[in-house]
């Protein structure tokens, strides 16, 4: 790998991850279907995980499991630990999100933002 390519190659990894993040983030904040929002959240969060894991990589390194060889270069274990925690947090949020979607479908008969906002507006109107 030639020296002048290093920065471009290295940074490309991050740029691609950022592009993924944008796709996921758009899916979350665009008004639409609730299941899709949760999927968007999943994509958004997984790309953030990728950002963390990318930063932990050391060139020519190996997985952080001690080999006994003193010369071994290990990748950084700390981002891995953080992301393990974050993945668990992510799936917990997903589970709660789906549970809420099921209840919303049962009570409103729809999981589209637009429909529900329209129904809520109707409910608010006579009250005030």
């Amino acid at each position, binding site marked *: 790998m030639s020296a002048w390519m290093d920065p471009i190659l290295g940074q490309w990894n991050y*740029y691609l991850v950022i592009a993924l993040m*944008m796709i996921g983030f758009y899916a979350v904040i665009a008004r639409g*279907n609730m299941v899709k929002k949760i999927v968007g959240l999943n994509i958004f969060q997984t790309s953030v995980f990728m950002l963390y894991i990318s930063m932990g990589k050391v060139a020519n390194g190996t997985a952080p499991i001690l080999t006994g060889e003193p010369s071994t270069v290990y990748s950084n274990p700390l981002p891995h630990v953080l992301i393990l925690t974050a993945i668990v947090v992510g799936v917990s949020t*997903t589970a709660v999100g*789906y549970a809420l979607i099921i209840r919303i479908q049962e009570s409103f008969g729809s999981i589209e933002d637009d429909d529900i906002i329209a129904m809520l507006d109707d409910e608010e109107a006579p009250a005030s």
Partner: protein
Amino acid sequence: MSGFLVNASLIALLALIAILALRLHRLFAVVMLSGAFSLVAAAQFVVLDAVDVAFTEAAVGAGISTVLALATLSLVPAEEKPHSISLVPAFLATLTGLLLAVAVTDLPNFGDPKAPIHNHVAPEYIIGSEQAIGVPNIVTSVLASYRSFDTFGETLVVFTAAIAVLLIIGGYTRAPRRAKGKRKGSQDAG
């Protein structure tokens, strides 16, 4: 070089999956693509030496999340209403991405062994894992000993999610089952 090619093609595949998931209206396909996204992400994590993370991502993202999503899908409409691209969210997402892209130029290069994160705290974990903990898997020793409190928090997050799901879909507090008179009654009792 080959590492870069593998990496870049995996991320390109991920981008393709993500865009497809965004574009399709059949929720079943969207959920399946989401599972595929996690699976490819897990492959990428292996390339980046994060074997523990890859293991978890595959089990959770492609496994549990997909199972829960499928259970949900059988209760909700199968198709989403078509939406045109909403401009404000697209603008916000682009802005966020640009902000990050600007930041990235200042960051240490990918894989650079001289980066601060590889030289400040992490070396102590690598040494300590052998000498103070005696566990070959450094991730395990950081996870369960050095940052054990984070993992305690993680367990509690899972516990919280369980409580939350039990309350939301396994609970008894429902509007239709409660008559108005009954509510009054329980008030008097309390």
